[in-house]
């Protein structure tokens, strides 16, 4: 059983929603990434999405674009990102890590070589933002061969027919983009999100994670009540950006932010659980 599957099954047993944290590898400095990842796990994050920095992250907002620029200023390469996962695994063999990024750096390394190394360094899944299902046949097969989960995005604009097609090729979980926009945007409509999750659930038994626009305990708890996983990214990176020169403060703030989100989510899913039992 894959780490992702095991993690989601354990959480489901407890009636809890997974908390997924996104950070860009190498931001603010490559030497700090592994420490940041451990801090996220300590704060109660269940899954890590580790961003592969790219010069032209066209689906991301200004916060993650800046994170990429900081990481690239220190020359963070895909090879280094894989080594960070290896280093993380020296202390943590449980927490699943999904690499999230754009296709070009992967292609330059070579898809086969990347897949093989990702497996060796104990990566769990791959999400390539600019690789929709139609272009992904080779990648899906290659990643599957190396026991890496294929994570795809589903958007508010995705048709029911496409949702089915995407789910058929997904494993680990599917990632629902909560709004039309880039990462870090506002205006989350939870009623709309709930409706779309229901639609996705018709096509798959995989857990559904929701991301884009979740930035605080309040928005996280609302989404936790309707989704299997909540993804928080830009809010963490805001802390990294604000305290890049003060490591203790940065790690402390990240821990405080994610602990408060974790707590709000657990309260929310407990209420949900109780409501369900009462009903």
């Amino acid at each position: 059983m894959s780490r992702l599957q095991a993690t989601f099954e354990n959480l489901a047993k407890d009636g809890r929603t997974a908390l997924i944290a996104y950070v860009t590898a190498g931001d603010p400095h490559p030497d700090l990434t592994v420490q940041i990842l451990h801090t996220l796990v300590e704060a109660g994050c269940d899954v890590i999405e580790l961003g592969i920095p790219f010069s032209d992250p066209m689906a991301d907002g200004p916060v993650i674009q800046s994170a990429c620029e900081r990481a690239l200023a220190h020359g963070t390469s895909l090879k280094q990102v894989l080594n960070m996962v290896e280093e993380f695994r020296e202390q943590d063999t449980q927490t699943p890590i999904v690499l999230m990024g754009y296709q070009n750096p992967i292609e330059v390394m070579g898809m086969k070589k990347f897949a093989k190394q990702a497996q060796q360094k104990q990566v769990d899944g791959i999400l390539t933002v600019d690789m929709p299902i139609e272009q992904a046949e080779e990648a899906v097969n290659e990643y599957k061969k190396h026991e890496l989960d294929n994570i795809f995005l589903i958007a508010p604009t995705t048709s029911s027919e496409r949702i089915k097609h995407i789910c058929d090729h997904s494993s680990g979980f599917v990632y629902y983009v909560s709004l039309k926009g880039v990462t870090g945007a506002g205006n989350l409509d939870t009623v709309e999100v709930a409706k779309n999750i229901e639609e996705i659930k018709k096509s798959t038994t995989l857990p559904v994670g929701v991301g884009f626009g979740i930035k605080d305990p309040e928005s996280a708890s609302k989404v936790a009540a309707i989704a299997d996983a909540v993804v928080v990214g830009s809010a963490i990176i805001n802390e990294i950006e604000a305290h890049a020169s003060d490591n203790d403060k940065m790690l402390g703030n990240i821990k405080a932010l994610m602990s408060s989100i974790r707590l709000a989510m657990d309260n929310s899913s407990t209420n949900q659980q109780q409501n369900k039992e009462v009903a």
Partner: protein
Amino acid sequence: MTRIANNIDPTTADSRNSDVMPNAHGMFGEYGGRYVAETLIEPLAELEQAYSHYKDDPEFIAEFDTDLAHYVGRPSPLYHAQRLSQKYAGAQIYLKREDLNHTGAHKINNTIGQALLAKRMGKPRIIAETGAGQHGVASATVAARLGLECVVYMGEQDIHRQAPNVYRMKLLGAKVVPVTSGSKTLKDALNEALRDWVTNVDNTFYIIGTVAGPHPYPLLVRDFQSIIGREAREQMQQQTGSLPDALVACVGGGSNAIGLFHPFINDESVNMFGVEAGGYGLETGKHSAPLNSGRPGVLHGNRTYLMEDDNGQIIETHSISAGLDYPGVGPEHAWLKDIGRVQYDSVTDDEALAAFHELTRVEGIIPALESSHAIAYATKLASTMSSDKKILVNLSGRGDKDINTVAEIEGITI
């Protein structure tokens, strides 16, 4: 009535035939495609569907033709540059005068076509990216004429380089948004425009200015720009009794070049030359010539040749001309390079600047710095050919917008 696309039976055409490209997935051989975030997939499919309907719709075609004739001023002249030809004592140089179009470049052919699509698709807001500002001006122009809201994304560095065009866009009622991320040039403007589109996709039509981006953009921009080659082919035959021996066009994203080349693709006697921006010289690495020294990768929704480093990061490009300062190139050019149908070469900033002055002084035509690359290459090529041969150059834009840049380089205060 002009056809917008060349409709040739794909079952009888050979695989080198550009008329059957791209395939149903938007691929030109291994290039092109639709590498975008999921949110944009359905809007792109919707655009593809709308285009495939309207390109054969007599009313749409008639409106497009009327606008090209009475608003743009087509057909643009084909001009025999006799003094320039004499100077090089070689092949006769003919200029396709896209610089005489309304707004001063070929860009308007495409923005008229896409704006007519936007209108039919019920989108009240258009967005565009721009480098030299020509596409921004052409977008702002059609937006003003159709009463559409218009937002143009432009790199901060280009805003400085192309101040007159920025003011023109503002006069036309467009909002010009400076882009400060990355290298602050065309590629970053494209990123920002894509971000806007993904956010406002319900009411917004994204007018891409070149033959790049996700499918169907490379196809529809090519089709709208092919009017250049169709006219030139006919004019050449009328004026000289035969086809040209060579075509020359500058290539940034590559829309003016595809527009000229596409109707000649099946004419085997016609050699084609695409000229990339060599900047300070290919050997310096400071240039914008991905077909000459890049390699295939994925950027801005399509697979094509790119300028990138060993880790797959897109590198900063350099060209004297903002319109060529782009690290990618249209996927059809990537394919035409690989099959050997078009030869891609480059000229440096200095050569382009010399050609800018030369055409101005010898023929009384101030060319855009982009088009000056094509002129520079054509004069070199002409001198290797006999005087009974003919070279057709796409003079894709006029140089009024560049006079500040040129003056600054030469230390002159206007």
